[in-house]
């Protein structure tokens, strides 16, 4: 406990932040059930009532993934900010500021190096909370950085995807992250290292149409929305209702786009086992 919380906690009439009713309970976004926040968190942010896998950020992800909860966060790369001086109803720089003020990171993709079942791995986590996880130059640069570190460490790169797509405010430069990330994957492959994708809710657009679909092994969390085109766009094009479960993990598995759908509680073990298989020959050599 630092001096501030000590002082604050000793003052009886100031309610502690985490005991406010807002934080005590978690209301499931899918089934609407109220669950103790603590219970929800202990359950890896998965609703114990309906198994809805809630969106989580990089720190929570790293915490539930790495051995002994130890990891080294890779510093985020420096990129040109707002290269197009983009402005719609708001300035892009102001949107960035607002996103950073919400304290989810410097941009939408964060990397860390750690061990999973004893095997080293660089893991990248895309955070939907940062401008919809959107892929711009910062995400592309972080992705490249993650793969480069994996090559330096001779270990796999694992990416947890979550994004609405490309970041429109960076125009064509966001689109160019599709070939740029693909180059990074090719280099990883040239080094004989695995690239593993875990798709989480939601992964759509240009992200799906590039690095999210190029994994040596493709996993997804249950019921994640995964697709190229947006559902509204498809409905407007075909003018009919979309099939049940369309663009959800299980639907993609059914259609051959994934190797497996894995519950969050099993992800660490499953990743550990896949990495073990893919790295066994390299380790023996």
């Amino acid at each position, binding site marked *: 406990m630092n001096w501030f919380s000590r002082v604050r906690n000793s003052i009886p009439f100031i309610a502690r932040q985490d005991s406010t009713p807002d934080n005590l309970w978690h209301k499931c976004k899918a089934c609407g059930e109220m669950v103790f926040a603590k219970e929800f968190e202990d359950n890896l942010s998965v609703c114990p009532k309906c198994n809805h896998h809630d969106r989580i950020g990089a720190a929570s992800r790293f915490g539930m993934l790495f051995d002994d909860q130890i990891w080294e966060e890779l510093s985020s790369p*420096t*990129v*040109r900010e707002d*290269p*197009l001086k*983009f*402005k*719609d*109803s708001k300035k892009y720089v102001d949107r960035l500021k607002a996103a950073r003020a919400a304290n989810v990171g410097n941009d939408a993709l964060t990397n860390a190096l750690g061990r999973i079942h004893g095997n080293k791995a660089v893991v990248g986590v895309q955070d939907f909370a940062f401008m919809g996880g959107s892929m711009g*130059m910062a995400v*592309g640069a972080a992705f*490249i950085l993650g793969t480069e570190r994996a090559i330096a460490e001779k270990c796999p790169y694992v990416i947890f995807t979550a994004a609405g797509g*490309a970041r*429109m*405010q*960076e*125009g*064509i*430069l*966001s*689109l*160019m992250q*599709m*070939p*740029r990330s*693909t*180059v990074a*994957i*090719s*280099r990883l492959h040239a080094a004989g290292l695995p690239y593993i994708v875990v798709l989480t809710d939601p992964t759509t*657009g*240009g992200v*799906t*149409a*590039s*690095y*999210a*679909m*190029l994994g040596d092994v493709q996993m997804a969390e249950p019921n994640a929305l995964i*697709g*190229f*085109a*947006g559902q509204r*766009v*498809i409905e407007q*094009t*075909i003018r009919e209702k*979309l*099939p049940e479960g*369309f*663009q959800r993990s299980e*639907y993609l598995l059914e*259609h*051959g*786009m994934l190797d497996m759908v894995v519950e969050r509680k099993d992800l660490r073990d499953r990743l550990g086992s896949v990495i073990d298989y893919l790295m066994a020959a390299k380790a023996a050599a």
Partner: protein
Amino acid sequence: MTMTSYLEFEKPIAALDARIAELRETADTGEIDIESEIERLAAKSRKLLASTYAGLTPWQKTQVARHPARPHFKHYVAGMFDDFLPLAGDRAFGDDKAIMGGFARMGEQRMVVIGHEKGDTTESRIRHNFGMGKPEGYRKAIRLMDLADRFGLPVVTLVDTSGAFPGVQAEERGQAEAIARSTERCLTLGVPMVSAIVGEGGSGGAVALASAERVLMFEHAVYSVISPEGCASILWRTADRAADAAEAMQVTAADLKRLNVIDRIVKEPVGGAHRDSALAIQELAKAVREELETLKVLSPAELRAAREARFLAIGAL
């Protein structure tokens, strides 16, 4: 000059041309001294056309890039090559006519050409699905690139799509994966690859065929992450702001050259490629030939390295 339809911003030119046509009809009936007036108006029309096209806004360029009379894949293929042997099918599901391809010969230079075809009549537009590729189209492109790579043929792609097709079956068959793999195949080719954005370069559906070491773009073509209408309806909440979106996203050849996303701008005839298709096609053929010539000396490893370096450098500090 064959003109069928004028764009909204060409109305003053259309009015002049209509007046000229009117006078011509009168002249045909015998009034010879009208000739000088016709010439004066024609000169005025040419001047107005040139000045209009010298100052097109990004949104106007978008309209030019989508002009129904603009040359399409089949016109380029007929005009650029001495021979074309179409190839079809992805060997897994079907043949997507939105993405065409085959062997082509330009003089003694043999190559594989792949491109989007939008179609130019109601019937052919439906057959070619308005140039919106499906997974089997991108997988056909991958197959043709494999073929080119194995037999040492350069790859030339002609990009002209509003985007990949958004449909239920396309999603089921892995639209995203097909695009990702096609992009990957471009980047790993051991033969020269030259791409030309000839009309619309619409998002991932364009990138899948445009991840080349040399990317050319027609003067009035556009290339963007999302259509101006799509961008406007998301960020401004109304598609009516498409012109603003086109401006903000920087979609023109000059913008993209400055951002190092493209390497070379190919000039169009005054008034756009649709006003003189033959000339536009010749310009493109010349540019493609020159680019292929410079790439010929590079080894497969050098080509791959050049392509990787090109994309990694985009947007770098």
